[in-house]
């Protein structure tokens, strides 16, 4: 059965105020369009989880949708700071923001534990670091086996809603990604509800022609949204490049609360949907389009 929905309907039906929501994607495939829709629907009291809260979470937190942030690296990658987030952490401006922080491996393993229905996940990190002293969810444990290795354990992270972006998916949610995988798969399997946003909805035969590329099966997906350019200014491998000029520009916008508010009015509240955003950005797409570099083909074999 088709799970195709508009972004507005998918967010309206699958996200509730107070939820823990993860929009994942490591530099690659960050679904800005979903974040904008959440801002547009004026959701409140969300706990935002993400390994690398970047510009989209700065926009969401600046817009007031979140009360808490769970993360492992906080910044505008390759550029600088997230000033809206910093204002809330450093000055409680306009209000405080609760934070819960891990290292990258700790966050990844929280999703793995969540996706695997495990009560915790052991890792060899955090030794002689101050991080566990500020996060009581990172706890020391001794291996019950003879080696007695000291490890740290992290608890499962099970978002109420995970939103991932992909290059392509079927109408029932079978999802294929290439390029950086981040922890999209782990975050999707860990979640109670999943929205897949894609550049293109494709026929099932496309997915079945290359099953090794399927990262998330439709069985864990609740809604499929076809939304080209939904990652801008982030990128989708093979479709459009990162718009670095925007990341640089965000440094200036984010520093000034008034400029941020003006930007949100112009680019989020003032637009009906992402299609309007893509239309207004139309001048950018040619410049961001990469050249072709096709993969080779493999023979899966016919066993009739």
């Amino acid at each position, binding site marked *: 059965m088709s799970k195709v929905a508009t972004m507005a309907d998918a967010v309206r039906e699958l996200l509730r105020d107070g939820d823990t929501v993860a929009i994942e994607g490591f*530099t690659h495939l960050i679904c800005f369009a979903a974040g904008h829709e959440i801002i547009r629907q004026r959701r409140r009291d969300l706990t935002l989880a993400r390994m690398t809260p970047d510009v989209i979470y700065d926009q969401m937190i600046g817009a007031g949708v979140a009360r808490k942030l769970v993360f492992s*690296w906080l910044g505008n990658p*390759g550029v600088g700071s997230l000033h809206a987030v910093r204002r809330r952490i*450093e000055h409680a401006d306009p209000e405080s923001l609760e934070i819960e922080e891990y290292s*990258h*491996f700790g966050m990844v393993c929280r999703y793995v534990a969540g996706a695997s229905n495990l009560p915790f996940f052991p890792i060899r990190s955090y030794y*002689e*670091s101050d991080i566990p002293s500020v996060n009581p969810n990172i706890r020391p444990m001794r291996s019950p086996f003879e080696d007695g290795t000291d490890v740290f354990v992290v608890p499962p992270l099970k978002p109420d809603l995970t939103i991932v972006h992909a290059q392509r998916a079927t109408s029932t949610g079978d999802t294929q990604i290439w390029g*950086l995988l981040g922890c999209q798969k782990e975050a999707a399997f860990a979640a109670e509800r999943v929205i897949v946003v894609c550049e293109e909805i494709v026929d099932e035969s496309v997915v079945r022609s290359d099953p090794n590329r399927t990262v998330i099966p439709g069985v864990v997906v609740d809604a499929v949204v076809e939304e080209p350019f939904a990652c801008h200014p982030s990128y989708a491998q093979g479709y459009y490049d990162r718009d670095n000029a925007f990341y640089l520009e965000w440094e200036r916008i984010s520093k000034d609360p008034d400029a941020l508010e003006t930007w949100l009015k112009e680019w989020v509240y003032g637009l009906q949907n992402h299609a309007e955003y893509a239309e207004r950005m139309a001048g950018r797409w040619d410049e961001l389009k990469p050249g072709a570099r096709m993969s080779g083909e493999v023979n899966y074999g016919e066993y009739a």
Partner: protein
Amino acid sequence: MSENGYTKNEMMIAASARTLAGERICFVGVGLPNIVCNLAQRTVAPDLQLVYEAGVFGARPSRLPLSIGDPTLVSGSTAVTSMFELFAFYLQAGLIDAAFLGGAQIDRFGNLNTTVIGDYASPKVRLPGSGGACEIAIHARKVLVIMRQAQRSFVEKLHFRTSPGHSGDPEHDRMRGWFGSGPTSVVTDLATFGFDEGSGEMTLLTMHPRVTLEDVKGNMGWEPRVADDVGETPPPTDDELRIMRAELDPERVHTS
């Protein structure tokens, strides 16, 4: 640009790239390490496999990556992995020979702070946090640090220890059972440092051309150990400068 035709950053990048001579598998960080590793691959370490925490092994970027998740890292690489695999099978299992780290603060034992300036609960400056740094410091066999030197960053006492370095007790360090053993070198815009085997303490090895001992000491928060035979860091070669300027950073983002 100095009167001798290269910048402080170019000196720092060249000196840092040379510390990778002969290394095989290197974990690359954001910013300066990106250009350092790409320079090393084109000079002293042609067989260097560049590993990015985003989940790329054996990257062959055709442009200077804008971030550690740039699409150019994927195209033409040896392998793309999930982040779980990258951190678990490659890093935690000990496959990484060398890794670059930096930070807002470093102390004399190479402990690093990338979390906060000031008090954690109400910080003066909220920094990015660990990212992968905490586990990289523990598992990479050599940790190489690249940082600009200043009183406020080379400090007697860190405000927060994000990533562990040497403990100051070599016996304790040996008993840790980690693949890593604290940073092995620090390259700044003024000098290069190693770490004393006995004490685990940062030790001045060479000073860049025209830098004095007073400059070095005036830009750190403790009285450093100084090697008996402190020399001058060889300036960037024509070849290193050509690669940096023409190939790696034509827009001079990192090198000016």
